[in-house]
Every structure is written in C-alpha cells, then in structure tokens.
C-alpha cells in the first residue's frame, strides 16, 4: 500500500501531521478542552540520517515521535514508513513490521522486565522477533551486549544496573533487530554528562548503516554533536529545520534555545494567534505596529539553501495558507 508521491528511499515521511487531544473539564458537566499538541508538521528522514527533534516540554516533539511509531493515532496527516502508509493500520497489521521500526523509551527501567537478566532480554528479542533459534540468539545477544560495553553485566538484573547500563540494555534489544528506524525519546535524560556521551555513542555508533534515527532531546550540545539535522519545534509546529554543521540558527527562539544566555529570557506566554513566539520576540519585525507576526502563522520556508528552513517573517517566510 505505498503512496505514489513518497520520496524515493526516505525511511520516514511525515505529511501534515495534526494531533489534537481532548481533555475533559474539571467537572462532569464542564466542556471538554481541545489541546492542539501538533499543528501541522512535515519532515522526512533519509536512510543513514540522524535528526533531532528539539523543543520545550509541550512543544509537541514527544507526541510527534510517538505518532511516527503508531503509539498514538494522528488526528490528521500521513505517516509513511519505507514508503508505506503506517497510520490507520490495525495493530495486528503493524506488529509484524514493528521489528524494523523501533522505539527507545525515555524511561529505560520501565521498559525492562525486572525478572530478566540483560542477556535474557536480548535473547528473547532475537528468538521471538529476530527469527533466530535459541543457540544463535544467545551467541548474537552476547556479541551485541559486548559491543555496547555490557560484557561484564550479562547476568545482571535491571535493579542491579546503573541508569546508563539500563539504557544500554534497551539499546541492545533495539539494535539487535537491525531496524530501519530508531526513535529515541530523550535517551540521556537524567544522566550525567559523561554517561550521556557513552549512551549516545552506543546508539548512534551502532545504528545499521541505512537506518534512520529520530532523537528527541532538549540537550542542544547533543543535537549539535550527533545529529545531521535539527528540527526545532514550538507550540506544535516546526519553526526551524537546520544542519548545524552548515548554518547557525536564525529563528529567535531557536537562537535562545541553543545559547540560553544570549538574549532575554522569554517570559510571556505563547500567542494563540499568528506566530506563537511574537510576545517574546526581540526582532523589529515583531514589534512593528503593522507587523504580520500577529496575524497569521508563518510558513516554513527555505532560507540560505534548501537544507535550512525557518518559519519567521523576518527571514522571508510567507503566511501559512
């Protein structure tokens, strides 16, 4: 069931993704509130590419990552994995393919079975999902764990492992399946700087050659160091798409995200009409009396090259239709 206009070879293609959550009011008779978590997101991940989804909590980055894998259903839009529609499929349909599209959850401990050792986790994965027989699964499992530096911890239970080790066991399980896509939700949260580097190295360093990776993070140094492209999200939209090796962030929010001490701290709540960042924006364009910023949301437009796109009127965006 492939879509005719999916780009050749993209591991993930997200089109017009919208997700609105319905939140019940405080009382049984109160009206429900609609929370627009994602308001129109488009992007692609090419084979071998690692992209970062960054933004503050509430920006929609986690929701997008969950929808890509089918953990949530989108309200509107399409998800294409390896050119095939993923959203709208039944769960039993998806289950057979899940081995190729893997998820590394934020809470590593919560994804591990407290009654299984590190090796048992990986052996089960390989035997049940990887089509290996027990002996082969064990051999491959040992090899995988050794590659991730867990050679001494094969028989450790999750509660006996440190946070970093638990993360690496979840990574081992995921990478052992040779996936085409890995979505990692803040894989280094709660770890010290030295441990963070080792977990990311374990992840990115051991990705299959043609795999795509989506890394949800709010550590900008990580995004800069490990990712080919960074997507900055704000209020449910992508406001900048940038290759940090080539360009510097242009959007005022992205700039402050990457260097928090460079400007004033944004204190005003986000605007619900027009560009969400307008109340905090230091640029003249936003402050001008007949500014376009308050009227309509700016569209993501290419800036200095097709790789660098910004949603900012000051940088040449037009309104979103």
């Amino acid at each position, binding site marked *: 069931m492939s879509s005719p206009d999916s780009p050749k070879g993209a591991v993930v293609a997200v089109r017009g993704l919208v997700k609105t959550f319905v939140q019940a009011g405080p009382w049984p008779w109160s009206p429900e509130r609609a929370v627009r978590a994602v308001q129109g997101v488009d992007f692609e991940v090419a084979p071998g590419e690692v992209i970062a989804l960054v933004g503050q909590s509430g920006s929609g980055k986690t929701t997008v990552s969950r929808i890509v894998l089918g953990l949530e259903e989108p309200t509107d839009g399409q998800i294409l994995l390896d050119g095939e529609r993923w959203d709208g499929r039944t769960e039993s349909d998806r*289950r057979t393919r899940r081995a190729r599209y893997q*998820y590394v959850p934020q*809470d590593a401990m*919560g994804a591990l079975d407290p009654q*299984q050792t590190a090796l048992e986790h990986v052996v089960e994965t390989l035997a049940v999902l990887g089509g290996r027989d027990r002996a082969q699964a064990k051999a491959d499992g040992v090899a995988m764990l050794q590659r991730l530096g867990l050679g001494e911890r094969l028989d*450790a*239970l999750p509660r006996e492992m440190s946070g970093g080790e638990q993360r690496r066991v979840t990574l081992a399980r995921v990478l052992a*399946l040779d996936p085409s896509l890995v979505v990692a939700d803040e894989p280094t949260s709660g770890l010290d700087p030295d441990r963070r580097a080792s977990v990311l190295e374990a992840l990115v360093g051991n990705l299959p050659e043609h795999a795509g990776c989506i890394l949800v993070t709010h550590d900008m140094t990580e995004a800069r160091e490990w990712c080919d492209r960074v997507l900055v999200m704000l209020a449910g939209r992508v406001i900048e798409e940038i290759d940090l090796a080539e360009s510097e962030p242009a959007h005022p929010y992205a700039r402050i995200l990457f260097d928090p001490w460079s400007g004033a701290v944004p204190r005003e709540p986000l605007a619900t009409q027009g560009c969400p960042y307008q109340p905090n924006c230091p640029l003249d364009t936003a402050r001008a009396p007949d500014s376009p910023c308050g009227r309509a949301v700016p569209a993501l437009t290419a800036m200095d090259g097709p790789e660098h796109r910004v949603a900012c009127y000051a940088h040449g965006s037009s309104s979103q239709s």
Partner: protein
Amino acid sequence: MSRGDASQVNRLPAGMLAAGCLLLLLAAAAMAPEHLPDVNPDLRYAQPSALPPFGADAAGRSLLHYATQGARVAVVPAIVAGLVVGVLAVIGGLLRAMGLRRIDGWIQGLGEIVGALPRMVVVLVIALILPRDARVLLPLALTWALLAAPGAMDEAAAVAERLGGARFVEALRAHGYSAPRIFLVHVVALNLRPVVVRQMAEVTMQVIFLEIALSYLALAQDQPSFTHPDSLKSWADLLNLGYTWLVFDDVQTGHALALGVALIGIVSVMALATGRAARAR
C-alpha cells in the same frame, strides 16, 4: 556459574519437593474410602506389622484409612481454595497491567467492602447455616478464598503497577511483542508468579487451620470433627487436654496427634517449597 544457571539449580529441588508433597496428598485423597470399614475387635491396636502401614486404632480400623480420609477432607478443599485465590489474583494483576481503569476501580471498591468483613465470623455463620448433610469443608474453604481474594488481588495489582503498568506494556508493544507474550509471559509468569504463588500457599495453609478451628464447633455437635464425623479425635479435644496428652496414656490420642501433625507438616512443607520454587529473583 552464571546467575541464570544458579537460580535454576536452586529452584529445582524445591519444586520437586513441592510436587512430591502435592502428589502424595492427592494420592492419599484419591485412595480414601468413602466410609470407614466396620469395627474389627480382633485387630484392636494392631501393630503396623499386622496391618500396614500404620496399624489399627481402638476399634480395629486401619489408621491408613483415617490418614487418607483426612487428606481428602482437608487437603482437597484447601488446594481448591488456593487455586481460586490464585486465579483471582492473576486477574487483579492483569487488570492493572492492562490499564482498564474502570473495571479495576469497581473491583477495588467491591474488594474494599468484602475485605472489611471479618473472615472467621462469616465462615462460622455459613458453617452453621449449612444443612447437615452439606457440612463439608469445601463451601467453607471457597468462602474463605473469596474473602481473601481482594487482598491478594490488591497485592498483585501493586506488583503490576511497580512493573510500570501501562508504560511497560506500551514499550513492549512498541518493540513488537504480541499481547499474549506481554501479559502471559512477562506480567503473569515472570512477575506476578511469586506473589500469586505465595498468596495461594497462604490460603491453602489457612484452610487447613480452618479445619482445626472448626473442630471447636464440633464440640457443640458432640462429634470429633465438624466437617466429617469419622475422624479419630477432634482437634479441640487434642488441644484441650492440657498436660495429660504428654503422658500418652491414651493411645488413641497419640495416633490422632501423630496423623494431625503429619498432615500439617506435609502441607507446610509443600507451601514453603512452592514459595521457594516460585520466588522472585
């Protein structure tokens, strides 16, 4: 030796011991005669050599019959009660793991009411209401099991919660595991197993002791056992004798005590061994 191998080695003897005890008790229960044989004065207090394996009592009846009857009367209902609690506990744990909040909520509410009832009193009331010919341990054991179930379900739900509840299930689902594998293998077999088995063993033991407690009721009916009129001597009598039983001048008392203690001993060993074999890592 890796951890995996070591714990396997530890569980095996315990598991075999538990299985052995269970088989012994079930075999005894199966062999039990419907009614005791007739009185035979020639064999009064016969030695084990004359009437294997345990000899005869004051009425010349083989003590083996008492033993097997005791097994049937007490042990089978106890095991059934244990199974009932086990099944309900697994359900309680699964509901929490599946995140079925509403059903979980109702059952918790119901459980709170049931759990507040004084177990012994309820059982005694039912015991006295039962018609004479229906006075066996099984309905009382089932009542006990149903009263104990809310607590067991709660504990199992807590274990499921600690596992990570819905997040754990979601992570495994995203990984690609099927629902049966997630719930039956990971939630039930690996994680709920220790607490459920422990609850089952506990209830089984409690029902055995319930049988003992009920013998005090039997005093009111002027028979040795409340649930079964053919026993050697009631527990109430045995435990009521004060210092005299130490003297063992009544052989009957000695027999009764020996068989009773043996029964409790085997059931206890079975419960402990089962707990050990099924324990968490």
